[in-house]
C-alpha cells in the first residue's frame, strides 16, 4: 500500500500536471483510501489515511492537519460503506468516490477560508470541484476491474479473522 501511495504521488506531481482537464487534476489518494476502507477495513484505512495526510501536508501543503483528518474520515467512511453497501455494484463505488471527493475538497476549502480569512470564490471552486469529481469517476471506471480484483484479494487476507469471529 505504501508503494501504491508513492506511485500515486509521483503520478499526481508529474503525469497529471499535463494530463489534466482544463488544468484540474484528479485526487487518487481519495480513491485509494476509500478502497482500503472498503476492502481492508477501517482499522487499517483510518491510520493509513491519517499518516498519508500528514505526509502530504508536510510535502506540499500550507498547513498540517486538515488533510490527515479528512483522509482518516474517508477511511472511516469506507469501513461504514463496507457494512451497509454492496461492493459488487460499480455504480455504488462510483457514487462513493464522487461523494467522498466532494466531502474532502469542501471540508479542506472551508477550513482554508476560515483559517486564512480568504474570500469565498464559490463559482471557481464549484467549477474545479465538478471537474475533479468527474475526473475521479472516470479514472475509477477505468481502474474498477483492478480495484475489485486486488480489493477482494486484500479482503481475504486482512478480514479472514473477522469472518471467523463474526459468524462462529
Amino acid at each position, binding site marked *: 500500500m505504501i508503494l501504491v501511495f508513492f506511485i500515486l504521488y509521483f503520478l499526481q506531481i508529474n503525469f497529471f500536471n499535463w494530463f489534466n482537464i482544463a488544468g484540474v487534476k484528479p485526487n487518487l489518494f481519495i480513491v485509494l483510501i476509500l478502497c482500503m476502507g472498503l476492502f481492508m477495513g477501517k482499522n487499517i484505512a483510518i491510520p493509513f489515511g491519517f499518516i498519508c495526510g500528514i505526509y502530504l501536508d508536510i510535502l*506540499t501543503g*500550507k498547513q498540517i492537519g486538515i488533510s490527515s483528518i479528512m483522509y482518516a474520515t474517508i477511511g472511516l467512511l469506507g469501513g461504514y460503506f463496507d457494512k451497509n453497501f454492496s461492493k459488487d455494484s460499480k455504480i455504488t463505488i462510483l457514487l462513493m468516490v464522487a461523494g467522498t471527493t466532494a466531502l474532502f475538497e469542501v471540508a479542506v476549502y472551508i477550513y*482554508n477560508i476560515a483559517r486564512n480569512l480568504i474570500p469565498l470564490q464559490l463559482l471557481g471552486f464549484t467549477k474545479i470541484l465538478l471537474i475533479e469529481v468527474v475526473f475521479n469517476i472516470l479514472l475509477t471506471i*477505468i481502474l474498477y476491474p483492478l480495484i475489485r480484483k486486488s480489493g477482494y484479494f486484500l479482503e481475504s487476507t486482512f478480514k479472514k479473522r473477522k469472518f471467523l469471529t463474526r459468524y462462529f
Partner: protein
Amino acid sequence: MSKNRKSTVVGIIITSLILIFLVVISNAKIEKISQIGNPFTGFVNNIQNGMVYLKNKIAGNQSFFINVDEVRQENEKLKKENSELQQSLRELEIVKAENATLKEYVNLTDKYSEYTTHPADVIQMDISNYSKTIIINVGKKDGIDVNMTVISDKGLVGHVISVTDDTAKVQTIIDTSSTVTSTISTTRDSIVVRGEIDSDNEIRATFIPTEANVLEGDTVETSGIGGIYPKGIHIGTIKSVVNTKNITNRYAIIETAVDFSRLETVLVITN
C-alpha cells in the same frame, strides 16, 4: 461470463477515450484546433473553389484565358523560393530561441542586481487544485529562510513559507491565501492583490481607492509595505477593471508577468 468481461473491456476503452478526449480538448489551444480542422475546411473550400471557377467561367471572366504553362512555371519558381525562405526562417527561429534563453539568464541577475539572490529550479508543483505552492531545490544549507522573496526574470513569484535543508516551499502570488500590497506604477495608488482560485495567470486587485483612476494596461508593482516583499518588484499589468454598483467594491484583474505554468528558474532574494 465472457459477455460480461467483454462489456467491461468495452466500457473501460470507451471511458479511457472519453477521458483522453476531455484532456485534449480542454488543454488544446484554438490554433491547434484550427489545424485539426484543416482537412474539413479543405474539403469545403475545394468545392467552393470549383463553384467559383464555374461561376467565373459562365460569367466569361477573362482571367481563365491566360497561358496555363506560364502560370505553372511561375508557380514552381515560387514554391522553390518559399521552401528556401521557410528553411532560413527555421534557422532564425532556432537562433532566436537560443538568444532568448541566454538573455533570460543574464537578465535574471542583471535586473535585480541591487539584491543578493540565489538561483533555484522549480522541482515540484502543488498536487492540489486549490492551492498554488511550488517547491524549489534550495534550502537552509543555501541560506534560504522563511519569508524570503522569490522572483523570476519577469517579476514576482511569491515568498518562502517553509524550508528544509535542501528544499523550500514557496507560496506563489496566484495562491488564494496570498495577499500582496502593491502600487499602480503610473498613478502610485495603493492596492491589494490576491490570487484567484480558478486562474494560473490572473490575480485580483482589491481595495482600489475611490478617487484612483485605474486604466487597462497600467503596470502593478510591490509597494514594500507588509514586511515580506521589497519595493518595486513587477507583478503584472491591469487587464480589465470591473466596476460595481458600490465604487468601493470595484476590482481589477491583473495579468501576472510570470507565466506560472512554465516556471522553471527562479531567484530567491536573500538580503
